């Protein structure tokens, strides 16, 4: 598997990874850059749809790239035009829009109505066209933010120095010329400040200053030049690159957003011209841009704000606030932009917002009109970290400036600022107080406070010191910087250098910022390498003014800078606006267009046209591999920070730094003529450095994906990219510098080391800044937002998923995927086969079969009706009737009586016969139903007759209510008067005399048990309660059943007989229990008879017949009348059963034979 070596940590990574698995650095350059993900708990930043450009579908991006060749073709034009000092608006019209805009323009021809929403939004965000560039140039000055004034101060200088194309860039021009031979701009992408080290030796003062700081100084020179309008261009280019900055750094750039907004109007005008001339088919919104007043004097506040917001879209909120504070500052007082910007940057941390406020305060000093917004921002200073507060504190002296209307505000601002920050800001304060409203001057005062700064910060201020000391004919920032250098010994090097760079730009209206930069470069020797590299990056920016004197931003150029991030564009616009003559000097229109073309060429960004020849050089330079290298973390914010060129966008603390440098020589000039010089000095310097860096980076393509972000570029007019500064920005962004520092590296080299404020004199970028990203100070690493680190490691791959379909198609990392988090792995395999022993298997099989058999539907077998049941029933009925009736009627006595008696019947007879005569007390139980009376009566009659013959005293009881009736019937049967066969009865028996009827015994078993224990409990109240008394012999029965001589149970139910046996058998003790049962109950009672529990048993009609024989009863009813019928009926039944069986057998045989015959026939 192929591996990709991380350019950050040099660790091999599989080529499948897009992000380094060790350091989180993106390994591959993506065509589109994802928007910053919104983390949980993070307040989403208001963004415009234009920011989503990077995530646009490929077809849109391709459409934008469609004009690449055109842009390339226009580049030479632009390169040739820079020679013309006065840019003209028509020239700018010639500038082809950027590729992505060109693609849109193509679309506009076809489908004006069908423009997508996002385009319409972008269109709406465009500021109204400014009428003229010159008035706009003055307006930005008023709106310039103090801290940006350090940067924009260069514009003022540019205004004063009409010869120099762009004041703040002029400083870069000279050093860039030597650097152009070297691929310094591409090297910037490498972080490889090695290129800068290879640069020609610079003055001693410049050697110490980092390149980027020197570039800042160079910017100072261009502050007063009309090239300030170019700043928007720079900012516009920086915006796409800002996507890579970490949010917290991007916020720094965000500070200049308002400035960019101001500059947008001129850029829009420029763009208008371009579109009208070249790309007449531009989209409506693009075509509408030229209609807007190009003059930066009348910037529409809304548009800048939007731009700033959009440009800061990638910034973290707290960083946005940093720039947001300054957003209102550069705007014309009365405009609503300050509040809007405040909203935009409302999410910025307080300390950063206050940082912006500092700049605002400084801006207020420069431009009293912007005091109001500054005041608001200044209050937030309390939250600044110490070191940043110190930065802002440098401006605290600004309020002391008599001209500044907002001294108290600044004072409030710096009250909370830390010492070192306040001192840093204080640097600008003296400059403002002593020299002019510009805040850059007081840097020298703050120098005393610089002692607390770390070295690298002090160096930053130190850079400004030489700049300040440098006696520039024009109030270049170098002079105040020189003073600061001495005072800023406490400052960290980089800060001191920074201050020095920015100070001249802001404080000095001197057009050329190169001079201070030159000094700064000398001071920047103390800078850490990475900082010095920052300055070195600006080298190309300085080259631009050299190669093309037209590079000085003219109002037209400033309008072109609308593509810059707002905060940058605004700063540049401000700087350019107050210097209408600068436009004459720098050929704004032509130069802007050429710059734009050159940018397009150099940066390989299709939508950029770099007309200047200078930009072609970097384009011709072989792209360094460092450019495509992905940054370890996104530092788009820093990139946005780097480009600020306009004085409006320069933070106060930086502006103050710049103010220190130009303080001495430039005070009179900058303070009076260009109040906006106070603001954005350092940023203006940054612009100068960053702009070329951008352009230089373009050829390398390192920022191609970033430039692909159409969001900021679309909002800002494409003409903004025509500026030289924008080219420098490309070179900067193409560097491999740490992302978070890329914003600080607008100037590749402090080429404009021109202490004399001549851009050509400016030394090249700082050398010896070869620090690698690993050399970052620990505190800087600690400041790295966790998101950038964690996000790259944790969900880097997941977050980079590009939606393929749906409304989110083309968007990257919109929907987080948790696939990797879930840890997809091969599922563990488990054995499917269960371990079952044979027994369990057999049982399971059996159960399965049972269940299956139950589920099976069985055919319903209908019983075959063999014979006609009704007919058979009739036949059987007739047979039985005949066989029973005929023998009874005829009386043949065909069937003999049973000869032998059964053992049970014999035992019964013996027991009864053995009863004492005339005194036997016999309990007779009549428990049979009336239905069985015909059988039971004829079975019990011989027994009862035997008892009567024995003259026994009888007690009748029954567990059935009908028992009483049965007893009566049996006694009637034996009554000679009522008996149809009186001859059978030997004597009469009367109730109450011979026997008693105890009646019904309720309770079944329980009743029998109770009755067995106490027979007299029953019948005492019955029939006057004298039952027992009526029968003399029964009086002695007492309370025990055993007092009876025998107990005879007459029942047709075996259960009733068993119940009497069980409950009364034990009570009878030795007394015999005899039973006369029905034939159907005999089988069930027979075991009790066999066991001896029942001493005698007479069953059914047969038993009665036998008993009659035993008692030798002549003409017994059973034996005489019933026996033949009974016998005939039994035989008939048996015959029916036999014949029925035979019939069934025959039927089966016939059926089987029929089946066999059928089978045979079938066979």
């Amino acid at each position, binding site marked *: 598997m192929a591996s990709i070596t991380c350019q950050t940590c040099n660790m091999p990574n599989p080529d499948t990874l897009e992000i380094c698995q060790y350091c989180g650095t993106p390994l591959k350059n993506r065509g589109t850059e994802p928007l910053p993900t919104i983390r949980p708990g993070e307040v989403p930043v208001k963004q415009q749809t234009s920011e989503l450009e990077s995530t646009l579908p490929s077809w849109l991006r391709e459409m934008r790239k469609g004009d690449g060749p055109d842009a390339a073709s226009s580049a030479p034009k632009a390169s040739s035009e820079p020679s013309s000092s006065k840019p003209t608006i028509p020239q700018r019209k010639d500038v082809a829009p950027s590729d992505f805009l060109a693609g849109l323009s193509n679309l506009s021809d076809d489908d004006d109505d069908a423009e997508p929403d996002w385009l319409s939004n972008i269109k709406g965000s465009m500021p109204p066209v400014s009428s003229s560039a010159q008035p706009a140039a003055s307006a930005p000055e008023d709106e310039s933010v103090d801290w940006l004034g350090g940067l924009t101060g260069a514009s003022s200088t540019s205004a004063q120095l009409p010869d120099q194309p762009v004041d703040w860039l002029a400083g870069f021009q000279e050093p860039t010329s030597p650097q152009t031979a070297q691929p310094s701009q591409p090297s910037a992408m490498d972080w490889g400040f090695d290129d800068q080290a290879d640069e020609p030796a610079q003055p001693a003062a410049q050697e110490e200053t980092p390149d980027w700081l020197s570039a800042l100084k160079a910017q100072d020179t261009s502050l007063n030049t009309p090239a300030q309008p170019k700043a928007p261009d720079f900012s516009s280019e920086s915006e796409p690159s800002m996507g890579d900055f970490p949010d917290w750094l991007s916020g720094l750039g965000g500070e200049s957003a308002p400035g960019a907004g101001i500059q947008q109007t001129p850029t829009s005008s420029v763009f208008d011209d371009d579109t009208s001339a070249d790309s007449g088919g531009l989209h409506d919104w693009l075509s509408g841009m030229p209609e807007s007043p190009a003059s930066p004097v009348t910037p529409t506040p809304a548009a800048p704000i939007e731009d700033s917001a959009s440009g800061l879209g990638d910034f973290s909120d707290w960083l946005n606030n940093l720039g947001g504070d300054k957003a209102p500052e550069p705007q014309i007082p009365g405009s609503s932009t300050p509040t809007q910007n405040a909203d935009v940057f409302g999410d910025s941390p307080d300390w950063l917002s206050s940082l912006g406020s500092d700049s605002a305060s400084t801006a207020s000093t420069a431009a009293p009109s912007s005091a109001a917004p500054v005041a608001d921002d200044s209050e937030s200073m309390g939250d600044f970290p110490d070191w940043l507060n110190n930065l802002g504190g440098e401006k605290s002296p600004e309020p002391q400036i008599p001209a500044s209307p907002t001294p108290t505000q600044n004072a409030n601002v710096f009250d909370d600022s830390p010492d070192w920050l306040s001192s840093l800001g204080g640097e600008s304060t003296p400059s403002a107080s002593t020299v002019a409203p510009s805040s850059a001057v007081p840097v020298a005062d703050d120098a005393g406070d610089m002692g607390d700064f770390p070295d690298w910060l002090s160096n930053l201020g130190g850079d400004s010191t030489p700049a300040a000391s440098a006696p520039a004919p024009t109030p270049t920032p170098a002079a105040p910087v020189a003073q600061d250098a001495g005072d800023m010994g406490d400052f960290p090097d980089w800060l001191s250098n920074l201050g020095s760079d920015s100070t001249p730009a802001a404080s000095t209206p001197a057009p050329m910022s190169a001079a201070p930069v030159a000094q700064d470069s000398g001071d920047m020797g103390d800078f850490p390498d990475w900082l010095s590299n920052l300055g070195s990056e600006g080298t190309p920016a300085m080259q631009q003014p050299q190669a093309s004197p037209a590079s000085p931003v003219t109002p037209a150029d400033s309008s072109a800078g609308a593509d810059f991030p707002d905060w940058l564009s605004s700063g540049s616009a401000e700087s350019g606006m107050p210097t209408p003559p600068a436009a004459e000097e720098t050929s704004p229109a032509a130069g802007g267009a050429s710059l734009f073309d050159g940018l397009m060429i150099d940066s390989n960004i299709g939508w950029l046209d770099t007309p200047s020849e200078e930009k072609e050089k970097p384009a011709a330079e072989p792209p360094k591999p460092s450019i495509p290298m992905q940054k370890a973390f996104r530092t788009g914010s820093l990139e946005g920070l780097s480009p600020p060129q306009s004085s409006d966008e320069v933070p106060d603390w930086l502006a103050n730094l710049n103010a220190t440098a130009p303080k001495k020589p430039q005070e009179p000039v900058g303070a009076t003529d260009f109040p906006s010089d106070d603001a954005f000095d350092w940023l203006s310097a940054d612009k100068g450095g960053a702009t070329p860096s951008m352009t230089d980076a373009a050829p390398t393509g390192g920022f191609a994906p970033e430039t692909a972000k159409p969001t900021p570029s679309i909002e800002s007019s494409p003409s903004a990219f025509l500026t030289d500064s924008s080219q420098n920005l490309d070179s900067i962004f193409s560097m491999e510098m740490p992302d978070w520092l890329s914003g600080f590296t607008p100037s590749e080299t402090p080429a404009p080391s021109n202490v004399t404020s001549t851009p050509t004199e400016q030394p090249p970028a700082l050398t010896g800044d070869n620090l690698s990203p690993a050399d970052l100070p620990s505190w800087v690493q600690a400041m790295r937002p966790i998101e950038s680190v964690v996000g790259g490691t944790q969900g880097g791959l997941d977050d980079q998923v590009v939606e393929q379909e749906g409304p989110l198609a083309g968007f990257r990392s919109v929907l987080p995927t948790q696939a990797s988090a879930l840890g997809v792995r091969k599922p563990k395999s488990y054995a499917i086969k269960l371990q079952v022993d044979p027994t369990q298997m057999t049982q399971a099989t*059996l159960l399965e079969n049972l269940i299956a058999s139950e589920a099976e539907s069985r055919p319903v077998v209908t019983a075959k009706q063999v014979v006609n049941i009704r007919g058979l029933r*009739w036949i059987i009925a007739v047979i*039985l009737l005949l066989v*029973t009736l005929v023998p*009874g009627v005829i009386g043949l006595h065909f069937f003999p009586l049973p000869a032998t008696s059964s053992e049970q019947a014999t035992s019964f007879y013996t027991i009864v016969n053995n009863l004492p005569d005339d005194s036997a007390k016999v309990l007779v139980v009549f428990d049979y139903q009336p239905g069985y009376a015909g059988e039971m009566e004829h079975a019990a009659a011989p027994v009862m007759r035997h008892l009567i013959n024995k003259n026994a005293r009888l007690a009748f009881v029954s567990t059935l209510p009908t028992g009483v009736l049965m007893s009566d019937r049996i006694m009637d049967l034996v009554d000679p008067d009522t008996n149809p066969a009186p001859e059978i009865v030997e004597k009469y028996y009367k109730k109450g005399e011979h026997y008693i009827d105890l009646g019904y015994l309720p309770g079944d078993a329980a009743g029998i048990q109770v009755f067995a224990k106490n027979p007299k409990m029953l019948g005492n109240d019955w029939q006057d309660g004298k039952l027992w008394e009526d029968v003399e012999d029964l009086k002695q029965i007492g309370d025990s059943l055993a007092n009876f001589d025998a107990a005879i149970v007459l029942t047709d139910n075996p259960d009733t007989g068993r119940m009497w*046996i069980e409950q009364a058998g034990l009570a009878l003790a030795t007394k015999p229990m005899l039973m006369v049962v029905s*034939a159907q109950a005999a089988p069930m009672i027979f*075991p009790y008879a066999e066991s001896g529990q029942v001493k005698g048993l007479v069953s059914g009609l047969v038993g009665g017949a036998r008993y009659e024989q035993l008692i030798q009863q002549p003409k017994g009813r059973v034996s005489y009348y019933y026996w033949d019928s009974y016998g005939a009926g*039994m035989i008939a039944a048996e015959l029916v059963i036999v014949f029925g069986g035979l019939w069934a057998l025959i039927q089966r045989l016939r059926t089987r034979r029929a089946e066999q015959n059928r089978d045979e026939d079938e066979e």
Partner: protein
Amino acid sequence: MLAFLTPDFIIGLLSLLFTILILSYAVGDNPAFRLAIHAFIGIAAGYVAAIVLLDVIENKMILPLFGDDVNEKIFVVVPALILGMFLLTKTKLTPRFEWMGRPVVAFLVGTGAAAAVAGAIMGTMYPQLISSVDMFDPSKDPIYILRGLFILLGTVATLAYFQFTVFGKKAATGKRGIVFDIIALVGQIFIAITLGTLFAGVFSAALSALVDRIESIILFLEHLLPK
């Protein structure tokens, strides 16, 4: 003519009529049969109610209240009367107070079950077990032993027939072994003989009733016929 209208004649005539109505069932279910059935059921229910009111309620619960035995009144009659009143709540007429009769019913059921169980153990199981064992008394006639063996075989075979649990290796198949099947077959024969015997007894009882009815008809007719 009126001389025939004696109670015996009327009873004889009604018995003859109802006998014919019942025997009409041989033809099939018919209204005559139903009429006779309904008549018998109604008469029997009325008779039972009359007997219960007279023998139970009046003689065993009301009359004792007016007797001389105070203890019987207090400890037997009155509680029985109260509990008997609670049983009336079990009727559908008073579902609201139905719960009051539950204890009484529980008492009756419990008492009856206890008596039945005790009687079954002491009156059936134990005596029958002893009797079965005594059959093998060598002092007795060997025929008794043979009878005992026969009874034992019949008992075991019959129980074996109703044994459906399978053990051993045959358990998986769910089929009993050959030996067990043979024993079960013997038990099945015993069961068949027993059922045949019961059927014969039922048929004998029914035939006896038929004969009685036929003879009663014959006697009735003989009384009608002039001698």
